[in-house]
């Protein structure tokens, strides 16, 4: 049913796997704190690192960072590593509406929800970033985690996660429009790209459905709470004592169940829905990396074409017998031969890097999904266990109606 994938494993890949991933580093993002007032206000988050890795001076340390700092970190990493084939995890989305509410000082549940959603997203972002062996070595990342003062990131508008996504998508569109007839010597890349395309589509579909689930569970919770109140009122009216008591108990059970639904909706969202949206954005980064490879190939190809032209020009000069122009042509030929060689080296390098990266990415993805799925199912079990407890407590009350 599914196309067989020939995963060509290079020696380096096997080596890396054999070493095992002993990443002893844990990042926590906590304690969101509003700093300042009005439209210049911002949220500061505490970033805590716990590690036994020797590259860090301490084993446990924390710093205060604001959202634009995270965006700045991502933009630095992206500019260094994306175009050579590394899958750099995207930063969380900017949100004008959400942030404005917080700035304006609305202390309501929707702004606390927004801040919590962002906090969790920032945490996941950093954890994914440090899990990447190459990025972990980067000095900018270490500075982000360690230094107490960080130069403020500017121009984060264009470089937010959404901004990068837009750029990547535009690049992808442009590439597609050019219909680069890339001489794909390696079927692996084509197959992988198709795989990721399919995965992207399916994840988006699933994400939409899970968002609907979250919404409806919240509705169920609200309706249950309303029913609990009216059951309590009914119990108050009821003039048969035992039935009145049972109805009040029913109201209490329903109130507890409302709480349960709220907690489950929370789990639905933070475990299931956010995992999906994280991966939808990660896959965009993967697609971007494949596009960079195409661009790299194009550059190499262009250099080869130019070299050919330069050789033709030289031949013409030879015929026309213009000695100074011939020398110039020979220089240009040498220049472009070097460029062709560089182009080939770059292309081979990026292809190698991408293979390694995709292997690592897929391993992470499997682990990630399995862990979250298990956690999510355990939350569902928890909910059912509680329901059993509540109804078991209620049953004798109902039977006591005489």
């Amino acid at each position, binding site marked *: *049913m*599914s196309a067989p*994938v020939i995963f060509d494993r290079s020696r380096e890949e096997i080596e890396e796997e054999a070493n095992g991933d002993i990443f002893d580093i844990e990042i926590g993002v906590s304690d969101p704190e509003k700093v300042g007032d009005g439209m210049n206000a911002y949220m500061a988050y505490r970033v805590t690192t716990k590690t036994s890795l020797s590259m860090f001076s301490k084993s446990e340390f924390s710093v205060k960072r604001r959202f634009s700092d995270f965006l700045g970190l991502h933009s630095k990493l992206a500019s260094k590593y994306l175009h050579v084939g590394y899958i750099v995890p995207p930063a969380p989305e900017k949100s004008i509406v959400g942030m404005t509410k917080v700035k304006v000082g609305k202390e309501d549940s929707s702004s606390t929800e927004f801040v919590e959603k962002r906090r969790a997203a920032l945490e996941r972002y950093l954890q994914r970033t440090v899990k990447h062996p190459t990025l972990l070595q980067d000095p900018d990342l270490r500075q982000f985690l360690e230094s107490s003062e960080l130069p403020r990131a500017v121009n984060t508008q264009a470089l937010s996660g959404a901004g990068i996504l837009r750029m990547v998508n535009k690049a992808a569109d442009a590439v597609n429009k050019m219909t680069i007839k890339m001489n794909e010597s390696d079927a692996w890349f084509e197959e992988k790209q198709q*795989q990721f395309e*399919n*995965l992207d589509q*399916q*994840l988006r*579909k*699933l994400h*939409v*459905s*899970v968002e*609907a*689930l979250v919404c*409806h*569970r919240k*509705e*169920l919770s609200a*309706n*249950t709470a*309303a*029913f609990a109140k*009216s*059951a309590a*009122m*009914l119990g*108050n*009216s*009821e*003039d*048969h004592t*035992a*039935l009145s008591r*049972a*109805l009040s108990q*029913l109201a209490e059970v329903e109130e507890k169940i409302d709480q349960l639904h709220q907690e489950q909706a929370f789990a639905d969202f933070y475990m299931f829905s956010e995992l999906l949206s994280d991966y939808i954005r990660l896959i965009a980064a993967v697609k971007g990396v494949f596009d960079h490879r195409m661009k790299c190939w194009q550059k190499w190809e262009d250099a080869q074409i130019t070299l050919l032209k330069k050789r033709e020009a030289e031949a013409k000069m030879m015929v026309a017998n213009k000695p100074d122009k011939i020398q110039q042509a020979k220089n240009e030929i040498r220049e472009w031969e070097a460029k062709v060689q560089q182009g080939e080296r770059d292309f081979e390098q990026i292809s190698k890097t991408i293979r390694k990266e995709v292997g690592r990415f*897929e391993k992470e*993805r*499997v682990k990630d*999904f*399995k862990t979250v*799925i*298990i956690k999510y*199912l*355990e939350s*569902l*079990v928890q909910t*059912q*266990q509680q*329901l*059993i407890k509540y*109804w*078991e407590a*209620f*049953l004798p009350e*109902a*039977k006591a*109606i005489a």
Partner: protein
Amino acid sequence: METYAEAGKEGKPSCASVDLQGDSSLQVEISDAVSERDKVKFTVQTKSCLPHFAQTEFSVVRQHEEFIWLHDAYVENEEYAGLIIPPAPPKPDFEASREKLQKLGEGDSSVTREEFAKMKQELEAEYLAIFKKTVAMHEVFLQRLAAHPTLRRDHNFFVFLEYGQDLSVRGKNRKELLGVFLRNIVKSADEALITGMSGLKEVDDFFEHERTFLLEYHTRIRDACLRADRVMRAHKCLADDYIPISAALSSLGTQEVNQLRTSFLKLAELFERLRKLEGRVASDEDLKLSDMLRYYMRDSQAAKDLLYRRLRALADYENANKALDKARTRNREVRPAESHQQLCCQRFERLSDSAKQELMDFKSRRVSSFRKNLIELAELELKHAKASTLILRNTLVALKGEP
């Protein structure tokens, strides 16, 4: 076309669970029902050894309007003024369900064939559930009448049960609609009576208590019923959400080439089974809670109507007293005034006695019905929660067990 008999009688909703003393001298049931476009045709089957009937076992076909006609006949009958008239069954309403099925048929190309099949299945089950409910409500109406020592002897009831032709009462004509309109005006006057605004003095503590109780109870049970409906619908929505989730997981699973393949496929299966369980939770809440609350909302209205009638009789009695005093002071037409006053007095006392009994029966009926349904609700919720836990745990074991 949907026949009730085909649908099977197991799982017939016993929403009212009326405590019908197993009196076998008159047994009424709806043995079959057919849904045709706009109307439902109920086959009313009677088994009786009463001498009045020509046969011991017979059936007739009736439609909703004929039930309403029977109900109204009871309400308008002075003889039954002191009784709680069982509430009329609600009109069969398949509109919403039919609309949904139609919308599904119009098609949404983004839906896979399996998803479509499941959604269709769900909607058909919904349609069937509504159908079963309407049959149950019509049946319980007749069964309460058959169980009541006085109401069962009504001539119109016999006609309803036995007369082979249709009763030509389909569709209210203009005169009847006017009658309904006038009756509603009278009802507002009754509201004034019952809420004590007319200044009528209640003489009996029992009825004073019942009046305050019923007024508040009816409002609150109506509220509770509406909100229970919303809970049930939200639950149903949730269950339906699992359909696209399961389908998407299934697609993901078939596409994967790594260990996630089995994980996604198992998860898809899990959600499909959870969906069915959530659906059952929703329908049980509907039957055991919503429907019960709805029935007692109507029954408490019928009890309120009884109180109106009694208060009207009291008002008549008081007016007769005043008229008698006037006649005596003027010493004119004393005899007719006396006999009128006596008539009113007797009527009022007769109504009060019978109403007292009826209201006590109403209470015990209500208590036993709530008890039965709340117990069944709790037991079913437990059953479903345990089943859910089991399939969740099994899936977890399978997922954790993999490398």
